[in-house]
């Protein structure tokens, strides 16, 4: 059994309805372990966001369960997701929902 998981919505992020017109997204999910201060720090450190932007995204992750931290080409989103995993954050890649 997998434990200490974030609240991933299994209904999103499938490749089933792939369309070249919709961008890909890197999504960071809430989890009960990573500290809010650490999540904001990672957003600043890796993406170079301003403190206010990083904190807004962190709060979105915390209160809404997830936040889109980047959008663009799939390969780029995979690099971002790997970078988030490198910090211990839970990130997924998906095509932007319709």
């Amino acid at each position, binding site marked *: 059994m997998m434990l200490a998981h974030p609240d991933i919505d299994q209904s999103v992020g499938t490749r089933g309805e792939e369309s070249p017109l919709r961008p890909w997204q890197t999504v960071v999910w809430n989890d*009960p372990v990573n500290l809010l201060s650490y999540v904001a720090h990672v957003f600043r450190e890796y993406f170079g966001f301003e403190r206010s932007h990083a904190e807004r995204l962190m709060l979105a992750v915390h209160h809404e369960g997830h936040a889109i931290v980047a959008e663009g080409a799939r390969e780029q989103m995979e690099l971002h997701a790997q970078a988030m995993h490198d910090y211990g954050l839970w990130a997924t890649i998906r095509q932007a929902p319709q």
Partner: protein
Amino acid sequence: MSARRTVVLELTRMEAAHLAGLVTQFAELLEDADSAGGDPAIARLVPDAYAGDAAAAREFREHTERDLLGRRRLDAGIVLSTLSAAALPEDVAADDAVLMELVELALDPETVQAWLRCLAAIRLVLATRLEIRSEDDHDVEDPRFGIYEWLGYRLDGIVQAASED
């Protein structure tokens, strides 16, 4: 980009010894783990990147898990190397005053990032072992929760020191 600065961490030799023990255990766990197979704590360090698409998630993991687990080992080595400056003399008695001696450890900006990633990763492993599912999960009878919270306290302190404007 947040300010890249040196952080000075002040802790007792006893605390440093406890921390070194934990990081050593973490490194031993990683030693045997070439992949996420079987251990949910290792799996948490290399999570699914595609929800609802097992094939894409597997392919992504095959490409990334060696690097991700390698990074965890490197970070653990860096933290242990920093902590060696606060090592205890051999055969120290349990009531020896040296245990409470404060030591200052200066972490350069790269070392700060290794410490943050390492403490965060150990917390993820502990949380998996403790079956923490919400921020309110806590068992005062279980000393591992105390360790989990102590690591969070230290992690938060380093984050605050590293991200002051």
